[in-house]
């Protein structure tokens, strides 16, 4: 195959990956930005979203579109509620101590993973795409659903942006992010804001899971990979910075696709994880953040 279609394909794949990554990473970034919590269980919320989407598809009769739409509604609500409860029951109780939260979210990771195994079983679960149409180029075929996920991801990110900028909830979140003590003094219910942020972060991951599951199968171990990649994105983009996260998601998504054209994907992954470590060591404010602003 010539290089041009090769690159076109890699570019398309990169775009799809970038859009899913954008959702999961924004959830992680939001939680870190507002709460200063590194949520290691984030990938498991993504996995739960995918499994719930499968359950909706499998148990709701009718065309696959119905199951898909149901999944798109049920998964974020259920996962959001679970995350809300987890925040109240676990994170709040340890006062959001940064190291303690990491250990506790690792605990959540194991609980959610094993819970999914017990509930949904070990098999990879395939989900029908809501529509099934392959776009044919002269060289290869490409799933139209994948392009649809890109569109949905962009819509959702725009929605999050509106929520953060225009709504009262967003204002409360930004105020809390800016200064927790002052927010408390102004009578902002910081505890509730935290729970809401944790839930919204988890919902972003769950939606990403729903979107991705017609492309990849739902499986109880599927959360690890997006977690690590989201880490990469959030750190390269600057911890807690939303525009930086979006930029980094596109960069990492595209470069991962393009890099693996020329190198072994394992090598590409080694390089990208090392990149994260080195960014944190030598440029902890991220690659896209203006220096001087508190990361």
């Amino acid at each position, binding site marked *: 195959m010539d290089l041009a279609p090769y690159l076109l394909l890699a570019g398309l794949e990169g775009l799809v990956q970038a859009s899913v990554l954008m959702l999961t990473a924004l959830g992680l970034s939001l939680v870190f930005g507002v709460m200063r919590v590194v949520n290691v269980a984030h990938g498991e919320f993504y996995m739960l979203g995918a499994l719930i989407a499968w359950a909706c598809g499998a148990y709701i009769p009718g065309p696959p579109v119905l199951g898909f739409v149901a999944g798109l509604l049920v998964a974020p609500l259920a996962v959001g509620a679970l995350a809300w409860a987890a925040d109240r029951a676990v994170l709040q109780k340890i006062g959001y101590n940064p190291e303690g939260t990491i250990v506790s979210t690792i605990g959540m990771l194991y*609980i959610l993973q094993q819970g999914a195994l017990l509930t949904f079983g070990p098999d990879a679960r395939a989900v029908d795409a809501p529509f099934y149409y392959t776009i044919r180029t002269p060289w290869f075929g490409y799933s139209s659903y994948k392009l649809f996920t890109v569109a949905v991801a962009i819509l959702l990110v725009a929605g999050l942006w509106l929520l953060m900028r225009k709504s009262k909830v967003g204002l409360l979140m930004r105020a809390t992010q800016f200064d927790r003590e002052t927010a408390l003094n102004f009578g902002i219910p910081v505890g509730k804001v935290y729970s809401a942020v944790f839930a919204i972060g988890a919902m972003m991951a769950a939606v990403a899971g729903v979107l991705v599951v017609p492309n990849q199968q739902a499986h109880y171990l599927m959360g690890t990979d997006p977690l690590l990649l989201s880490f990469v994105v959030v750190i390269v983009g600057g911890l807690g910075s939303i525009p930086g996260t979006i930029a980094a998601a596109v960069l990492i998504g595209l470069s991962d696709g393009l890099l693996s054209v020329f190198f072994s994907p394992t090598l590409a992954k080694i390089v990208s994880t090392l990149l994260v470590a080195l960014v*944190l060591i030598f440029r902890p404010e991220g690659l896209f953040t203006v220096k001087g602003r508190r990361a």
Partner: protein
Amino acid sequence: MIHNGRLFALILATIAVLFALQFALSDYLVLAATRILIMAVFAMGYNMLMGYAGLLSLGHAMFFGAGLYAAGLSSYYWGSSLPVSFLIGILASAAFSFVIGLLALRTTGVSFMIVTLMFAQAAYLATLYFSRITGGDQGLTLPTDARSFSLLGHQMDMTSDPVRFNLALAIFALVLVFMFFVTQGPLGRLFAAVRENEPRTRMLGFDTYRVRLAAFTISGTVSGLAGALYGLVFGYIGSAFAGFHYSIEALLFTLVGGPGTLLGPLLGTTVMTMLIDRLSGLTTAYLMIVGVILILVNRWFPKGILGTIRERALPWLK
């Protein structure tokens, strides 16, 4: 001069009891104890950094893996004798942890956790990437002639259960005594100083970066020693041992037993290993129980079992 005599006596007593256990325990528990001792060495290495120097790493599997691979590969490809392979494992993990420490210690707190996590992930992926050498995911089974060695004229057969147990115990005891002298002496005092108040320690004239680097290197080396020991005692090396799960095990064992206590890692490793061992026959959800314990310990006993005892009753239990 021995600084904390009571603790030293307790350590000697623990070693004596462990030695005696092999005559009291069932066959299986002796085997289990062998594994526990090796993993406890790993946790002790981890505890050096987390408990004593106050740096929480999420990537110690890379050092365990470094020792495991350096020892195992030298035995597999060069046919080096077991003691030589063991030494190679220790030296390799010392060099590796020194280099990683040089970089990672430029960060602290959450950044340090993520940096160590990322380095470990890269190391894990490297074991897969170089699978032509490492055997990758499937790993390598060490040849049968690498299962015995002669020590001072005695033939040590690694397939014999008592030999395995006593070898593991001897190395565990050496590491424990080494740890005692490191943590209860001037170096340990410096580790406590950077843990409790790093800026103040700098203003007392110490290059705290170097102090941390010392803690990091000792920690990584001891973890690597455990990895080398595991690989040689069990005759298998594989990338699973460099995976995230093993970093978490070291953290879990230390956290349960008591970070910053000499015997905490042994206690934590014993409790968790036996718990998982008993539960796995009953339920597939034993990892879920691990998760619950992580959350509960973190909530109610952030200082672990021995740490809580030290706080309430025995301040010398360090």
